[in-house]
C-alpha cells in the first residue's frame, strides 16, 4: 500500500510539473448507463489531479463489434484512442499494437489476482493492466430447493437430478413451461466459456494447455460434453442452443427455471425491485465434474491497455495505472459492484457492506479457469470458434462427443501447424 501511494505520488508529481503541456487522452469505455457514469467519474478524478483532459469514446456493446472496431483503428495505426478497454482474451490478438507496461506496472501487478495477471501477459511481457474480473456462477432458486428439500448441488450429477426433480414437481403443478437448468448454448464466445467450465470441472483440461499442446481429445472432456448434451431437451429447453446471457436470464428471472449459469451481473437484476424472484435467489460456484473434479468458473473481465500509436503514451499509461489502482477499484466496487482484481479488496469492509456476496466470490475468482488465450495468442479466436462449433454440434446431437472431439483435435493441430505465433 505505501509503495502504491509512493509510485502514485511520483507519477502525479511528474505530471503536475509538466502540466504546462497538459494533453488530451481518449479512452474507450462503455457507451451508456451506469458503467459509463462510473468510468467518467474515474477519469475525471484523474484529469483533475493531473491537469490533463480525458475524452471518453463510446464503443459498441457487442464484443465482436468492439474488437472489429479496435482492429480497424489499430491496423491503420490511428492515434484516435489512447487507452483501450479490452476483454481478457484479446491481449494476445492486439498485443502487437500495445505498449509494453512491464516496467511501469511492475510495482502494482503482484497485488492483482494471478489468473487476471496471466491474461494480461504476452510472452512474459505485461501488455495490459487488469481492471475488473468476472467469472461464471451458478444461480439457484433457494425457495425451490427448500420446497423439494434438496441441497445446493455440488456435482453436475447432483444438479441434473435436482433439476429433474424440481422440473417434474413444478410441471405437475401445472407450470408446463418450467425448466431445470438454463445456460448459454449459442454458437458464440459464450458457449466457449460454458463448455470450458464443463470440461475443466471434469478434469478434462482447458482445450490447449499452458505449453500450447492441444489436449482436448480425452475421455473426461467427452464425458463432460455427454453430460451437457444430456440436458438439452430434458432439463434444459432446446432453445438454449441459441441463448446468450440475456435470453437465459429472461427464462430464469421470469421464474421459469430452477438453475442458471451466468455472470455476476445477473445478481443485481434478479434481486431488483421489479424481479419476480427477488429474495429467492442464491449463488454458488459451478458444480464439480465428479467427486474428484473441481469447481470451475470461466474467468472473464476487462483490462486496460495503451495503444502503441498514442501520441501521449506516458500520460495514457499513468491513466491506466490510476484506473486500475487500489483506490479507484475500490470506488468502482462500492459504487458499481465491479469485481476488483486486487486481492486485498475482497476483505475490504466498505466493499463487503455495499456488496454482501463479494466474500464468496474471491474463491470463485482464485479458482477460475482461464480460456487458453495466452497460449494460443493471435489464434485464440480460431481455437475458440472451432471449439464452440464442435460443442454446438454435440449439443444439437449432430455429432457424438468422441467423434466431435477427434475432429476438433485434428483441426486445432492444423491451425497450430507452425506453432501458435
Amino acid at each position, binding site marked *: 500500500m505505501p509503495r502504491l501511494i509512493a509510485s502514485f505520488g511520483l507519477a502525479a508529481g511528474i505530471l503536475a510539473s509538466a502540466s504546462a503541456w497538459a494533453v488530451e487522452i481518449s479512452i474507450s469505455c462503455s457507451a451508456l448507463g451506469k458503467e459509463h457514469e462510473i468510468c467518467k467519474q474515474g477519469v475525471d478524478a484523474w484529469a483533475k489531479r493531473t491537469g490533463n483532459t480525458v475524452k471518453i469514446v*463510446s464503443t459498441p456493446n*457487442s464484443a465482436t463489434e468492439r474488437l472489429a472496431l479496435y482492429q480497424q483503428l489499430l491496423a*491503420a495505426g*490511428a492515434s*484516435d484512442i489512447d487507452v483501450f478497454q479490452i476483454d481478457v482474451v484479446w491481449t494476445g490478438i492486439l498485443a502487437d499494437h500495445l505498449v509494453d507496461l512491464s516496467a511501469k506496472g511492475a510495482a502494482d501487478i503482484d497485488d492483482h489476482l494471478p489468473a487476471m495477471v496471466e491474461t494480461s501477459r504476452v510472452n512474459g511481457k505485461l501488455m495490459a493492466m487488469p481492471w475488473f474480473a468476472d467469472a461464471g456462477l451458478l444461480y439457484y432458486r433457494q425457495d425451490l430447493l427448500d420446497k423439494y428439500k434438496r441441497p445446493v448441488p455440488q456435482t453436475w450429477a447432483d444438479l441434473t437430478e435436482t433439476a429433474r426433480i424440481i422440473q417434474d414437481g413444478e410441471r405437475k403443478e401445472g407450470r408446463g413451461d418450467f425448466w431445470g437448468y438454463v445456460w448459454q448454448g449459442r454458437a458464440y464466445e459464450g458457449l466457449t466459456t460454458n463448455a470450458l467450465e464443463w470440461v475443466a470441472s471434469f478434469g478434462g483440461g482447458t482445450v490447449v494447455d499452458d505449453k500450447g499442446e492441444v489436449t482436448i481429445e480425452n475421455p473426461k472432456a467427452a464425458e463432460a460434453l455427454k453430460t451437457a448434451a444430456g440436458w438439452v431437451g430434458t432439463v434444459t429447453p432446446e432453445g438454449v442452443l441459441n441463448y446468450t446471457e440475456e435470453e437465459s436470464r429472461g427464462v430464469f428471472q421470469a421464474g421459469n427455471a430452477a438453475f442458471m449459469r451466468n455472470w455476476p451481473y445477473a445478481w443485481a*437484476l434478479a434481486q431488483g425491485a*421489479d*424481479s419476480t424472484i427477488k429474495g429467492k435467489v442464491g449463488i454458488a460456484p459451478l458444480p464439480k465434474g465428479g467427486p474428484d473434479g473441481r469447481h470451475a468458473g470461466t474467468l472473464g473481465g476487462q483490462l486496460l491497455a495503451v495503444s502503441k500509436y498514442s501520441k501521449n503514451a506516458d500520460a495514457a499509461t499513468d491513466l491506466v495505472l490510476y484506473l486500475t489502482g487500489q483506490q479507484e477499484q475500490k470506488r468502482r466496487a462500492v459504487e458499481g459492484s465491479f469485481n476488483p482484481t486486487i486481492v486485498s479488496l475482497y476483505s475490504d469492509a466498505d466493499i463487503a457492506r455495499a456488496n454482501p456476496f463479494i466474500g464468496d466470490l474471491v474463491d470463485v475468482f482464485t479458482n477460475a479457469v482461464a480460456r487458453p488465450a495466452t497460449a494460443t495468442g493471435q489464434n485464440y479466436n480460431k481455437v475458440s470458434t472451432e471449439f464452440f462449433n464442435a460443442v454446438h454440434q454435440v449439443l444439437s446431437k449432430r455429432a457424438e462427443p468422441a467423434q466431435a472431439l477427434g475432429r476438433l483435435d485434428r483441426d486445432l493441430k492444423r491451425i497450430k501447424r507452425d506453432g501458435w505465433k
Partner: protein
Amino acid sequence: MKIVTRIGFWLLVIAIGLFALFPLYYAIISSFRSGAALFTIAYLPERFDPTNYIAVFERQPFGQNILNSIIVAGSVVAISLALGMTAAYAFGRIPFRGRGLLLMTILAVSMFPQVAVLSGMFELIRSLGLYNTLPGLILANLMLTLPFTIWVLTTFMRELPKEIEEAAFVDGATPWIVVRRVFLPLMAPAAVTTGLLAFIVSWNEFLFALTFTLTNERRTVPPAIALMTGSTAYELPWGTIMAASVIVTLPIIALVLVFQRKIVAGLTAGAVKG
C-alpha cells in the same frame, strides 16, 4: 362476385398491413415497459411510461444522431439522383459502344461484401482527412446507392418511348435541357421511388457509420442504437432500444407521406402515349 372480390381485396390489404406492422406495434408496447416485464408477453400496453423515451434523448445526443442521419441520407440521395439521372440518360437514351460493359462494371461495385471493402475504405477516408466527419460517411454511402440508382433509372429511362426527345432536339435543345425539361418530369415517379429506397439504404447503414465515426456527436442512428447498453455490459436495455427504434421510423413515415403526392402524380405523368 364483385363483393367477394372486394372482401378478398380488403382481407389481403389487412393481412399485409398486419404482417408489416405487428413488429413495430410490439416494439411500441415494449418501449413502454422495462426491467423484468420484458420477459413476459403482452399484447396490449399496460401503461404509458415515457421513461425510455426520455432516456433515449437524455443519455446521448440522439437528436443530433437523427439530424446526422437525415443530413447523410439526404445528401446521399441528392447526389445519387443528380449523378444517376444524368448517367441514366446517357446509358438509356444514347447508343454508344461499351454501354453494356460500363453498366456491368458499375454493377460489379455492388458485388463485394461490405466487410471486404471496409478496410480499404477506412484508409481512403483517413487519407482524405474525412475520418469522423459526415462528408466521409456520405462519400462511403454513395458506393452503396450509386450503382443501384444508375441501374434503376437507366431501366426506366429506356422504357420511355423514343419519340419523346426527338421534337426537342429538332427544336435545337441541348441534351442537358432535354434531361431537365423532358425527362425529369416524366421520370418523377421512378426518381422519387429510387430516392426513397436510396434514402433508406443510407439511413440503415451500420458498418461504415460505426467504423468511420468516433464521437457520439458525429454518429448516425444505427451505431447510436448499437451503442446503447444497460447498467452492465451483458444487460440489454430493451425498452430504450425499442423506444429509439420507434423514434427512427417516424422520419421515414413523414418522408413517405410528404412524397405521397409526387408518387401519385406519377400516375398521370406515366400516361404518356406509348
